[in-house]
């Protein structure tokens, strides 16, 4: 067991950073550098935690870095943190996303307030990933709304107001169900034990509840997470939001916050309501498959790059959901890995799209042609990200997708097989988009755009590196994830489908 102080620092550091950034807002650059330094430290610490975490060596998937303090008994409010193989890489991803989002940020995006919101968002997201208490998770899950809202509303594109509203209302309504579910579960537990009101995960996970109740609660939880992920058909907020948000915002939203949804689905919806799974699996799996195919289909026709990524994310999230609900250790592990990989990949996408938008003033596909001519490096970088996204073996995306599909095929053959069609589809829309944007003869403005600058290349280095490394040698990551997933799935196993 390691001390929970690491996690405490991880949560608090961005807050401090944000504070300092705001205090130094008069000198713009200073606040920006403060933020960058914070992000760097954060990333470093996150990696340290990832390295220190060694439960997996004993094949033990339980938590580490744990501690619990009750903050308010009447509210059942507690500070309860811990990290296991599943949350571990979400933590790393959080830090990484912040780091990249900051480096990728441009002029106006360096304002103290912007970086401040970004840091806040990081802190909250991180906290919800490490919370080991359902209520705590929910609270931070909700907290993330505020910074995201302001980031979109203040720095977004022309439609930002609408987008921000839609995002907020959608998610807010979704989490309404979650809150009711959580409270209900908490009180069921309290009435059974007669003890104090608590929402500790471990306590609730062992609350015996009837089949019917657990189905309803699962639905309540699932709706919230389906909106956040987003899972078809709860996705319609995401295209407009991703499109309107500033690059940093899009990255945070799609690469990170979406993962809150799938993480919650795995940890809470699946982890807490085993009884509901036999009934719910076919439904959610079907939604996931529809999401994969539908997302890809729309992505073929969508007119701008950001929406393209949004819809491809819908498809990718479909894969993640598939793995999570597959009820197989292999599939679920793949899903967790894909959560991380998709984060990295989307990051890459939005960064490059950001660069293009900055140069060309537009991310409409029709405005762009033959960029590979003037900007070969950018094209190459995009290609790498794209190939990873369409699951080219040897790159990160493939490993996770394959695990998901193999796992799902083992438990739900048909869903697995149909989902595999998504692999074709992904190639279709991505290559089609690539051809329209980068191939062909560049004329006029397009011919004049400068290639990726050195700084921009460096920003993308971690992305590309992770894509390659995790494609070729994912073992260290998988070794840490698997035992924890194993624990979760086998907690579920008696009623769910075992591996």
């Amino acid at each position: 067991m390691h001390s929970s102080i690491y996690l405490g620092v991880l949560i608090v550091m961005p807050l401090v950073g944000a504070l300092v950034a705001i205090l130094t807002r008069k000198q713009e650059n200073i606040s920006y550098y403060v933020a960058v330094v914070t992000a760097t430290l954060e990333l470093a610490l996150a990696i340290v935690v990832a390295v220190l975490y060694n439960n997996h060596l004993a094949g033990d998937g339980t938590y580490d870095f744990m501690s619990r303090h009750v903050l308010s008994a009447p509210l059942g409010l507690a500070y309860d943190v811990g990290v296991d193989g599943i949350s571990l890489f979400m933590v790393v991803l959080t830090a990484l996303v912040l780091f990249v989002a900051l480096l990728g940020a441009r002029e106006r995006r360096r304002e103290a307030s912007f970086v401040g919101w970004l840091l806040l968002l990081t802190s909250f997201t991180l906290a919800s990933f490490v919370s080991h208490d359902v209520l705590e998770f929910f609270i931070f899950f909700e907290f993330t709304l505020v910074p995201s809202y302001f980031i979109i509303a203040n720095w977004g594109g022309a439609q930002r107001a609408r987008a921000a509203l839609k995002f907020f209302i959608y998610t807010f309504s979704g989490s309404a169900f979650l809150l009711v579910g959580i409270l209900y579960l908490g009180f069921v537990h309290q009435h059974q034990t007669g003890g104090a009101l608590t929402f500790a995960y471990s306590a609730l996970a062992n609350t015996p509840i009837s089949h019917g109740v657990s189905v309803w609660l699962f639905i309540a939880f699932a709706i919230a997470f389906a909106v956040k992920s987003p899972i078809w058909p709860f996705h319609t907020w995401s295209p407009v939001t991703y499109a309107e948000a500033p690059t940093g915002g899009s990255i945070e939203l799609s690469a990170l916050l979406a993962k809150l949804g799938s993480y919650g689905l795995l940890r809470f919806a699946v982890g807490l309501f085993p009884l509901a799974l036999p009934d719910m699996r076919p439904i959610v799996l079907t939604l996931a498959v529809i999401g994969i195919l539908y997302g890809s289909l729309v992505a073929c026709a969508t007119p701008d790059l950001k929406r393209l990524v949004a819809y491809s994310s819908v498809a990718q999230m479909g894969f993640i959901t598939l793995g999570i609900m597959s009820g197989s250790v292999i599939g679920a592990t793949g899903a967790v890995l894909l959560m991380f990989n998709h984060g990295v990949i989307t990051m890459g996408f939005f960064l490059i799209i950001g660069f293009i938008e900055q140069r060309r003033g537009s991310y409409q596909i029709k405005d762009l042609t033959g960029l590979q001519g003037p900007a070969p490096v950018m094209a190459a970088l995009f290609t790498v990200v794209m190939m990873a996204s369409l699951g080219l073996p040897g790159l990160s995306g493939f490993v996770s997708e394959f695990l998901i599909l193999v796992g799902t095929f083992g438990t739900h053959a048909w869903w697995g097989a149909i989902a595999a069609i998504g692999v074709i589809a992904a190639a279709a829309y991505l290559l089609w988009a690539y051809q329209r944007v980068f191939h062909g003869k560049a004329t006029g403005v397009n011919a004049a755009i400068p290639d990726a600058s050195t700084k921009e290349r460096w920003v993308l280095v971690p992305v590309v590196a992770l894509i390659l490394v995790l494609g070729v040698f994912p073992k260290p990551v998988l070794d840490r994830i698997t035992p924890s997933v194993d624990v979760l799935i086998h907690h579920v196993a008696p009623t769910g489908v075992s591996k």
Partner: protein
Amino acid sequence: MIAAASSVTIPSIHYLALLPVFTFFGASLLLLVLSAVVADKVRINLATAITALASIAVMVYAIFQWAYVSNHGATTTVAHAIVLDGFAVVGTFAIGAALLMSTLVAHDWAKRERIAGADFHILALASSMGALLMVQANDLIVIFLGLEILSIGLYVLVGFDRHRSTSDEGALKYFLLGGFASAIFIYGVALTYGATGSTNLSSISYFLSQNVVLHPGLLYAGGGLLLIGFAFKVAAVPFHAWSPDVYEGAPTPVTGVMASIVKVGAFAALLRVLISALGTQLDTWRPILFVLIILTCVVGASVALVQRNVKRLLAYSSINQAGFMLLGVWAGTPRGAAATLFYVLTYAPVVIATFAIVTLVGGKGDEHHSIDHYRGLARRQPWLGGALAVLLLTQLGAPLTVGFYAKFTVLAATIDAGGGALALVALLSAAIAAYFYLRFALTLYADDDVEGTRIHVPWLTGGTIALGVIVAVLFGLWPGPIATWVQHATLLFLP
């Protein structure tokens, strides 16, 4: 002369319990006398000072009362007409704070509007005294009197502004409907009296706990009418129709008073009557509240969507808020009472601060209340606009603000009492409400017409606003203390 009447034994009086009421009454009388004897008008600074002192004093008493209650437990006095328990103490404190904040706002407003004299203060003190009576009353008659004192003061305050025809229109509407509601309420008192043989809450609950009412018709009728009376005061749909008009018509600081002090008083009394007196009849009045809550939440939230006038918008918003406060009442449990108390306690300062800003934006003549007057406010005056944004988010129940926990507690209580569906409906109404709160907040940050008139922020009002924001944010990050406090308060509930 009372002492002279030897035949009657004067009931013992616990002065600590009555101190707050006396303070307010005394202060208002003092001001009255002053304005009578002083040739020229009483200096408004003096009036404000006295009122502020009185309210601060009341808050201090509340602290002593708390100490007393936590040591000696709850007690009643003056022939069980008045109760001194944790619940009352919290209410007293809240009213004191609310009056203090309102007075500060009103001070600057009066200066701006060139309103001399202590009239506002006298009436505000009196109304607050009425609210105090409702909080502390343990007898339906006393509650009724408190209600009337509170209302009569407000009728006048609403019509206070002579320069807007809307002001006296509001006053008349409020008075007519208020009178109607009072009649219904007192009729309910009469029927309850007929059904239980007493108007004293303790006696009523004792009676109901001792006897099984085989033919509860009369009791039901009484309870129902009382409920309607309260429903009117807290503006629950369909008894809400007065509030948008009156909120708009009244001078803005008065609107603040109505949205805060009245709610504290009304909810305290409502909880006392329904939980401590008619607690045995839970199953009877729950369905009524169930419907009222759904209507109140949904109507409040949705009609606010289509408002252009900020005061009306906030009126509907406060209707929606009332729906949430009623959730705790519906629960009918100590947790529910605590939750409602938490809600009211935190809502009061927030809503006063909100109306303080509305007062400022309203400008001389208190007339600029179109939402367009708020375009880009936060761009022009980041602090003022930011404050308003925070206050709106708080009322929305956005995370990081105390509003989040306020909603959280009432929902928790509701679900604890088995009202999952009700909680869900309420929450979804909050999602609707989120739409107009956020749209409002966005208007503040609209970057067209950044060139607007800068609004001067007097320091008293500024302080009040700051206070409201601090409450909203501080306890949004650290809700523990209040939660514990209200919980203890309801543990020290009588009986």
